[in-house]
């Protein structure tokens, strides 16, 4: 009986655990201004929550610094510190960028991963 209970628990429990984790492990897709709003609830010492912003690259300052515009039309500066992209950033590209905002006098987005849209 104990064997059946534990195997049953494992068969149901492990996929359930994965599903449950997926509910808490998906970053929200937001606009830059929404990301700033969320960051304003965190203290100076903690990092702002991770979010995804869908962007169009408007200009490239260097291979790690770009200017983007989001779906709401807000233009903002982005610093990218993820792994070197296979295709370098170029104006007109559409990406989903994962990262967090740095709030302050000149807010900017710090992206750590890039996904093509």
């Amino acid at each position: 009986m104990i064997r059946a209970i534990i195997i049953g628990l494992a068969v149901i429990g492990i996929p359930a655990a994965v599903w449950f984790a997926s509910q808490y492990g998906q970053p929200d897709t937001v606009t830059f201004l929404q990301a700033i709003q969320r960051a304003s609830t965190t203290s100076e010492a903690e990092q702002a929550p991770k979010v995804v912003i869908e962007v169009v690259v408007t200009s490239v300052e260097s291979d790690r610094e770009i200017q983007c515009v989001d779906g709401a039309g807000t233009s903002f500066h982005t610093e990218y510190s993820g792994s070197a992209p296979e295709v370098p950033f170029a104006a007109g590209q559409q990406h989903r960028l994962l990262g967090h905002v740095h709030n302050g006098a000149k807010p900017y987005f710090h992206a750590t991963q890039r996904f093509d849209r």
Partner: protein
Amino acid sequence: MIGQIGIHLLFGIALASTVLYGTTLHAPADDKRISIARWLFRILAGGLVASAAGLIALIVTHQFQFTYVWNYSSTELPLHLLVACFYSGQEGSFLLWTMFVAVIGILLQPYAKRHGYEAPVMLFYGLILSFLTLLLVAKNPFAYYYESFASQGITIDDIPANGKGLNPLLHNAWITIHPPILFVGFASMSVSFAFAMAGLVRKDYHRWIDISLPWTLFATGILGFGIMLGGFWAYETLGWGGFWGWDPVENSSLIPWLVVVALVHTMLVQKRTRGLVKTNMALAVLSFVMVLYSTFLTRSGVLGDTSVHSFVDPGRFAFWILLLFMVTFIGIGVSLLVIRRSDMNVTREEFAPTTREFMLSIGSALVMASAVFVTIGTSWPVIMEVLGLPKVAVAIDFYNQVHRILVPAILVVNAISLVMQWRNTTRSVFRRRVLRSSVAAVVGTGVLIAFGVRDLWPIALGFGAWFSFAINVEDGLRMLKAGPAMMGAYVSHVGIALLMFGVITTSMYAETYHAVLVHGKPVNVGTYTLTYLGKEQVDKEFRDREKFRYYVRIEHDGQRRTVAPVLYWSDFNQRQSPFLEPGIRWGLMNDLYVSPKNIGREDVFHETTVQKGASAQVPIDKNVSLFLDGFTMPMEEGQTEDGRMQMSAKIVATTANGDTVNVKARTRITTGPNGPAFDPEWTTIPGTTTAVGLINIDRNNEDPSKSKGTFAFYDVSKPRPFAREEFTVEFSVKPLISLVWIGVIAMVTGFAFSIGRSVRMLKKKPTLQVVQNEPLT
């Protein structure tokens, strides 16, 4: 050079000892090869201790020609922190772990020999050490500075004058004991794995339980203690107010601990019933594999940017060794389990639900469920990356939600397992004992509700904790008559119940206030009065920081206490974020916890920001407006006598009667690590009583015509306002958090009792002959 050669040599010795032990699996105990393998192991252990001592000596004597010493230490550090530098980086912590495995091996060797298990146990144990020493070859702590930076043109003559220093977060006494204890726990987890593998090789599926139980209890107790010391360090040092944050680094120690907790309980079941043979073998493998998996997660760099901790990329070679290390031991464990699978079925038996063995099995399954959830949560970024999805950690609430169900269930099952008897429990005994404890739990939970607990989770946790507490105290007191050695499990369980009470009270009753404390001015927060008394610079010998202790007086019910939180910026993190240390007034009934947030000055000057080419009203005189015409360049203004740069804002002021006057508001600029600081020269606007000062220039590099200036004003007919220092804090009252620490101490004490008991029981058994060796196939 000696150090580097030595590490390579130690890897060779580890391999040689392991191979020799492997060739003597079926040899008699007096075989010459066993004696050589034994000596090789002793040389290996001696070499590792000497390496560790050597590295400490290099750090203490500031030998910055070694990359590791340069990277993690500096001349300013006191002796105890210099010693802590030894294990502050990957290379040193691998050496510490390896050394503890070897030292424990020195104790294990004669123990295993006495029980006729030396060759198989030391074969697997030696294999673990071989991988660990191979890791040291990849992450050699004795690499030279000029070797590490040869590509940057550094030569053998370039020896840094000072090191980069120890992470300021680690400048704490607790950091000198927390990692060593944790690594003793990790190292001792190898022992039960080696015994289980030896049991499988020998087809001896029961005796290894008796022999390895004291070691397994030791590993569980010491690792649990190490984990909670980490929690205590976080509470006492990091200033975020908690002791557990479900961070991957914390989870990486918790996962193997949960597995080994389950293993201890299932080993007890096998001891009494000879059941759960395969389960114990599997859990022994899993507990060690989870140590390796957790190490892989936190040391391979795969978690990258998903934690508050920084994960250093260990390099490709070390990454593959870590992966190979883990895969090899999963392979060995699973292969042996599969090979012996049918053989282990011989003593299979069913447990009736009315037995202790049944409830202990369910309890272990629940603990394992916790381990599974924590593993999935911690691995989530890796799973996401494999699936090509955004790599993020799960929210902390994932762990909290899961454990709101699991922890009360574990507490209740634990308590019921103690009520049950081995093999069978009569209904009357069960009813009588459960009824008594249930009444106590209901009353206790009623008290919690009376004190304001309303949510389901703390009520369920409270009931579970009271139920477990009542049964364990009752049984523990009964067992006291038979001597303290019998009380181990009860003391540990009472400790866990107390810990849970501490979790409930701190999570439900803690009061937290945000307060801005102006120097010398008492501020009421709740029923407390806080006064910021002033600051004192400390650790002046460290040049990377200006560290201040901020004294805050707390008054309550006529009593006065002073705490001293710390807040500072350091070059260590390029002053990107402050380092915070809370001020704590420790107490049995509650802790008063002052967490620093910010330091600044009172906003006594009225300010306004104006863009170039735009106008704004003067805040203290609505009849006067300013037009910002532009800024002068620094070369126009020249430098101050003390060498500071100067700039001015060109303002056109319009007074109440419509007159316009040109005003130059000059400011002196000091550039520092936190950006420019502006020191205004106050200028009175002619025809008014308003003085204006330029306190910030926000230059727009893309379009200089959109640059902005920020101006401050005061009325010159009144005394110039004095801006006092403002200290922003988060003040918390944490009731009964002492129960968390008392609970952990009780838990570890219980383990100590249990270890003593299991060793004594083992001694009482007649010496067993070496089991007949049988081939693997």
